[in-house]
């Protein structure tokens, strides 16, 4: 155990302290809150770099620091921190992107009244996200997972006076919680089965060989235990990472401020699902050796990932809100990561996660820059012509787009996507995911071309766009840095020198292969991207939109398809009609049961009691009381009659006394009382 892992807790603790400062600072302490948040983040970044250095010194080792949270009768509930290359790379990425976005936020949120609160929530998010990354316990990971969800909830609903923002925040929390409940069940199952939730614990953790061997027995339904647990945990990832069928919350989450979208809903939190699956990868692959199971956990992951990748790209084609296009693009890219995990290349997934984090954060921040400059105009139909007004934003945004599209050779996105396509092509179970991914690449190129063309080229199509001006350095500097990263990051994992993959896999030396080995696939990819860009340019770039009301050229050609896609294929309506209605029906049922059945039973008993009471009262009044009353009346009458005898005449009394005496004595004498 090195010094680094012992002090790993400092990485999330610093932003947490900043969040506390932000929460407790007075309302006017804007600079204090922002300063604390940025300072803490910088500290975390430095610590993360140190941790990375510590991890790379021995990439094969899982350094852990475990401690008991509290005693539980039969053994303590233990938590811990873990340091390995995966953790370290994630830490550095999260801390770095967070730092840049914090800096960007100081410019973007300058006018907001709740500026201080914003940084408090952001710091809380960063703390939870970093905690999630460094956790060595599924429980600690779950705790941070939920806290990340809370921070996301608070930040989506940051402009809470907007009803749409409040509703989106609630939708996000509830939807992800559905997945989290699956996660929770998986976690409980694991705890019950293994007695520990630690990943690595010197041979006793559940990701280590001894424990995994226990998980291979079959359930009555035919699944292996590890498959079932793995799929339950995957439910959590589906919720958090916006995978089909729980992807509906992510586009709505764009109601939050743009830095939030960049940090949480593009770069970090949504990628946590991918990270989670990568973290428990030994568990996910534990059933690969079993031949006679109906389904492997990873197969499900692959298909869901591929479907989501295609779905997201499709829907993005028909969106008009700049942030929603990027949101669906995020959904799609997360699908690619899941696909990579599913087809067995978790290294490719993590590589894409890292590259995507940078270029998608760049794109969102660029979008934020545009929105900020254009006075919160988000509709690309109303923008246009910004390339001349906002040079820095335009250039960096273009670089990010090229990375996302996968323009060959120079851009990180190309290499990471290439790795995924390669892995999907090599998957032995099915080729369907590969075809979906290929189609997704074309679509991605297409809708991004559209985005660029509509936003930056031509002439401004609204007052807001016409008055746009480039933003200050607090906002442009992060863009430049991120753009540099989006390009340079390709260097860490070139096929000929896969440094990142080697480190992640715990290999000391880096063994690359010549670049032409995968040239066929790479060529295909280049052709696909060119096709997509060409199509996009043909439709949107050549004949630029004249004004914001002009019809979309694609919608003219296939109105039904575009309308369906613009409506996001009706998932929200579908859920409202099924899950929502089921939920409402259950609530009504419970309420009716309460009011009428259980409450009715009680009321019936009460009525029965009251009826009995009525009967007895009547009986009492008519018979018992009646008799008693008559007697009383008679007694009173007798008393009145008797009082008539009280004449007040002393003579009479004396006489009566004497007569009484006579009678008594006569009785005694004559009766012979002797």
């Amino acid at each position: 155990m090195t010094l680094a892992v012992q002090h790993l807790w400092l990485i999330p603790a610093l932003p947490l302290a900043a969040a506390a400062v932000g929460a407790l600072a007075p309302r006017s302490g804007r600079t204090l809150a922002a300063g604390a948040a940025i300072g803490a983040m910088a500290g975390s970044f430095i610590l993360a770099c140190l941790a990375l250095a510590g991890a790379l010194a021995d990439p094969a080792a899982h350094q852990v620091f475990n401690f008991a949270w509290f005693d539980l009768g039969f053994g303590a509930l233990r938590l811990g921190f873990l340091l390995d290359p995966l953790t370290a790379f994630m830490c550095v990425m999260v801390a770095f992107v967070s730092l840049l976005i914090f800096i960007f936020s100081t410019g973007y949120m300058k006018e907001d009244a709740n500026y201080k609160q914003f940084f408090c929530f952001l710091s809380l998010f960063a703390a939870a996200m970093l905690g999630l990354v460094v956790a060595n316990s599924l429980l600690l990971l779950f705790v941070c997972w939920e806290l990340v969800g809370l921070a996301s909830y608070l930040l989506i609903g940051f402009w809470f006076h907007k009803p749409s923002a409040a509703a989106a925040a609630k939708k996000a929390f509830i939807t992800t919680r559905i997945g989290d409940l699956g996660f929770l069940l998986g976690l409980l199952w694991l705890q019950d089965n293994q007695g520990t939730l630690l990943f690595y614990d010197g041979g006793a953790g559940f990701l280590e060989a001894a424990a995994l061997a226990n998980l291979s027995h079959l359930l009555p339904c035919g699944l292996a235990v590890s498959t079932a647990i793995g799929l339950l945990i995957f439910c959590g990832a589906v919720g958090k990472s916006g995978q089909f069928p729980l992807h509906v919350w992510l586009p709505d989450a764009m109601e939050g401020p743009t830095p939030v979208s960049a940090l949480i809903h593009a770069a970090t939190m949504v990628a946590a699902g991918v990270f989670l699956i990568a973290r428990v990868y030994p568990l996910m692959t534990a059933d690969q050796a079993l031949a006679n199971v109906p389904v492997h956990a990873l197969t499900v992951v692959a298909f869901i990932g591929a479907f989501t990748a295609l779905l997201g790209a499709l829907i993005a084609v028909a969106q008009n809100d700049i942030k929603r296009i990027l949101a669906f693009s995020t959904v799609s890219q997360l699908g690619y990561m899941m696909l990579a995990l599913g087809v067995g290349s978790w290294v490719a997934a993590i590589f894409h996660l890292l590259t995507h984090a940078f270029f998608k954060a760049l794109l969102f921040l660029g979008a934020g820059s545009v929105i900020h400059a254009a006075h919160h105009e988000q509709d690309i139909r109303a923008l246009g012509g910004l390339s001349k007004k906002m040079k820095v934003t335009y250039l960096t945004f273009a670089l990010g787009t090229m990375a996302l599209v996968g323009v060959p050779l120079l851009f990180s996105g190309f290499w990471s996507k290439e790795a995924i396509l390669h892995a999907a092509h090599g998957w032995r179970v099915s080729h369907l995911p590969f075809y979906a991914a290929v189609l997704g690449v074309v679509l991605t190129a297409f809708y991004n071309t559209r985005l660029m063309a509509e936003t930056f080229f031509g002439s401004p199509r609204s007052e807001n766009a016409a008055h746009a001006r480039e933003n200050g350095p607090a906002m442009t500097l992060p863009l430049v840095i991120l753009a540099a990263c989006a390009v340079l990051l390709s260097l860490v994992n070139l096929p000929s020198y896969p440094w990142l993959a080697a480190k992640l896999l715990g290999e000391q030396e880096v063994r690359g292969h010549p670049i032409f080995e995968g040239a066929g696939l790479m060529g295909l990819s280049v052709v696909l991207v060119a096709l997509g860009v060409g199509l996009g340019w043909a439709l949107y770039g050549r004949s630029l939109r004249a004004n914001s009301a002009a019809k979309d050229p694609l919608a003219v050609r296939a109105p039904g398809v575009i309308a369906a896609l613009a409506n996001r294929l009706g998932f929200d309506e579908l859920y409202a009609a099924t899950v929502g209605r089921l939920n409402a029906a259950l609530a009504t049922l419970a309420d009716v049961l309460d009011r009428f059945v259980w409450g009715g039973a009680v009321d019936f008993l009460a009525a029965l009691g009251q009826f009995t009471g009525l009967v007895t009262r009547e009986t009492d009044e008519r018979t018992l009381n009646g008799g008693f009353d008559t007697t009383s009346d008679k007694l009173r009458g007798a008393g009145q009659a008797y009082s008539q005898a009280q004449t007040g005449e002393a003579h009479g009394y004396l006489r009566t006394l004497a007569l009484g005496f006579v009678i008594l004595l006569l009785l005694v004498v004559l009766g012979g009382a002797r």
Partner: protein
Amino acid sequence: MTLALLLIGFLLLAAAGAAMLSRNLIHSALLLTGAWAGIAGFYLWAGAEFVAFAQVLVYVGAVSMIVLFAVLLTRQGATTAPVEFDSFRRAAAGIITAGGVMGVLFGAILGTPMDVTSAPPPASITVRQIGAQLMGPHAAALLIVGVLLTVALLGAIVIAAVDKPDDPAP
């Protein structure tokens, strides 16, 4: 002895009866004083000299004086106005009732065999004996009677006192 008793009894009853019949209250009071004196005579006859002494002291001396004062204080109009029997019916009923009582009493007395005639006449009780009895076994009763008398004295004064606080005497 018996003769003496008869004589005393006759005088006593005669005085009492006359007192009850007299129409003049003053006469009634004086005749009653006589009857009380007769009773004292009876006590003497029976050998209870101390009782006879007390009878004379209390009744003949004290009560008769109070009665006389009461009579004088309640006289209306002429001092010698007779007190009439205002209701013949009541008088008759009273006398008949008394007669009834007398009848049953006589019946009881005469119908009861009492064979105590053989007992010797006891030595008369001495004052010393009475004193010892009073201060011994009956001390509590004596005390209570003392208190009673005091209270009666105060009570009599309070009841009979003139209460006209609002009307100062001229």
